[in-house]
């Protein structure tokens, strides 16, 4: 039996009459990549926002391990081990790549009142930042300013910052978006690598990539889940085929 690290129990989020996420339940287990796919506007990013606490749910429950965290703020969830990346590059552009990661890692030892201690001497955050850069292959560009990175490198940094906080649950919002084939391959290797020890929710448009790494796939359409299961099951599901390819198939 796999250990479920995060669970959504029939969570919904409504914006007025729009049901962006409607009654979605899913479980993220350790050592598993759970991919969420779906057409544009299916509510995938909103789902990540609900799980990470960036948006409050309209109804339903979010659990981290056995703890009910529905009412927790986003920083609280992040400190408890929920890490997320963004669909659009969302890093500290004017800071160096290293400082981006170090600042993320500093989350574990915030100690803001210790103003006599220099942040540069914070060994915990330094080590974690260096490890995250190493893992994502950004060590060589560590001293560059984040704004000067290529798009692909920024996507890597996005994931590196997420890793620097050493989360147990990773919510990755289209980490491959806009990446070249070579960069994509490296990111997929990284994802396979990260599977050990983490519960990963992967939102992705690239179907080849999804079927290459995912252990479970959930398909969303118009805010709701239409199918969930192992990749082969989902691939053969008629409703999924209809959603993606239309009636003719």
């Amino acid at each position, binding site marked *: 039996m796999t250990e479920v690290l995060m669970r959504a129990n029939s969570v919904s989020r409504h914006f007025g009459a729009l049901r962006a996420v409607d009654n979605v339940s899913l479980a993220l287990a350790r050592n598993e990549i759970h991919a969420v796919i779906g057409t544009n506007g299916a509510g995938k990013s909103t789902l990540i926002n609900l799980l990470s606490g960036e948006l409050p749910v309209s109804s339903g429950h979010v659990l981290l391990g056995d703890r009910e965290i529905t009412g927790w703020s986003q*920083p609280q969830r992040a400190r408890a081990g929920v890490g997320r990346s963004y669909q659009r590059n969302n890093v*500290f552009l004017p800071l160096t790549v290293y400082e981006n990661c170090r600042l993320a890692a500093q989350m574990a030892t915030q100690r803001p009142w210790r103003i006599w201690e220099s942040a540069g001497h914070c060994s915990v955050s330094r080590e974690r930042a260096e490890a995250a850069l190493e893992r994502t292959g950004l060590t060589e560009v560590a001293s560059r*300013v984040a704004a*000067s990175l290529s798009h692909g490198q920024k996507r890597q940094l996005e994931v590196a910052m997420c890793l620097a906080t050493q989360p147990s649950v990773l919510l990755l919002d289209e980490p491959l978006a806009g990446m070249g084939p070579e960069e994509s391959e490296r990111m997929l290797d990284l994802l396979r690598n990260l599977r050990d020890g983490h519960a990963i929710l992967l939102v992705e448009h690239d179907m080849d990539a999804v079927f290459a790494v995912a252990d479970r796939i959930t398909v969303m359409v118009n805010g709701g889940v239409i199918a969930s299961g192992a990749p082969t099951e989902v691939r053969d599901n008629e409703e999924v085929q209809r959603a993606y390819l239309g009636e003719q198939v």
Partner: protein
Amino acid sequence: MKRYAFWIWLVAFALAATLPLLPPPIGTEFYIALGTRILIMAIFALSLQLLVGYTGLVSLGHAAFFACAAYTVAMLTPEYEAGNGWWLVLASIGTSGLLALVIGILVMRTRGIYFIMATLAFAQMVYFVFHDFAFFGGSDGTYIYFRPEFSLFGWQLVDLEDLNQFYWFTLLALLITVAVLAQLLRSRLGHAIVGIKYNEQRMRATGYDTMAYKLASFVIGGMFAGLAGFLFALQYGFVNPEFASWHQSGNGLLMIILGGLGSLPGAVLGAVVFELMRVWYQDLTEHWQLLLGGTIIAVAAFMPKGLMGGFSGLRLPHRRFARVKATAPAQTTATTVMQPQEHA
């Protein structure tokens, strides 16, 4: 802070310290008093720089904390003798910090233009409290007849009634302000508030309670504004509601914009240039405000990073951040270009 920046600060402070000793055209009562005023305004500008330039909180109500400390020292100074300096400085900084905490809790929920308006509104409330309550002396304010005494074990450390000593005392206060803020910016707290300035959303997603960080910055900024207000009240020997006026808050903003946002030396330089321009232009013409405003507009237009950005060849701390801003728009275009792909 880089090592050479440290030496530049040291030389600047050493030079500033010699002002009262210089021969007459400069070392006169007028210039020493002007120098003192500039140093006080530099403390005020630095305190605002922490908020605006480093935390990204544009406040138009910073004068409230300046005035709060000034009124505290005026109210607590005994009528017929000098008060205890240690107690007065702690009390005035403390009440400013407390006021900043209360106002901060209330305004921190707002952002951007709403934050500017909310801080302005609270500062106006403080203004009218001082203005309308007879206890505070109404629109005329209150006088301080004796500057406080700073003594240790019965030994008087400094005689603030002496012009030169008051100047050096103020210089020391500025030195402490610069040292504390420079160290604060090196600390984890400092790095976190700079992170909030650049990307608050990411800071929250990373696990920082950004509200508390911003509040901390607001309170620390308020306390240093209080230190400036304390000194200003002592220099002129009176307080009035104008201390809390939005003009005073606006002047602070102009100083840091003039000097360069996100730079400690920028705040000091901005205060120096602003106050000097005031004096020079007042000598030149009755319409000096026109000249002052024109100069500031010209600097803002042609030196977007302020005077400090213009001297970037000097390599001072945080130039790194300022320089990067030039490359930042490239990223915006990159994301806009990416957008169609994401929706494809």
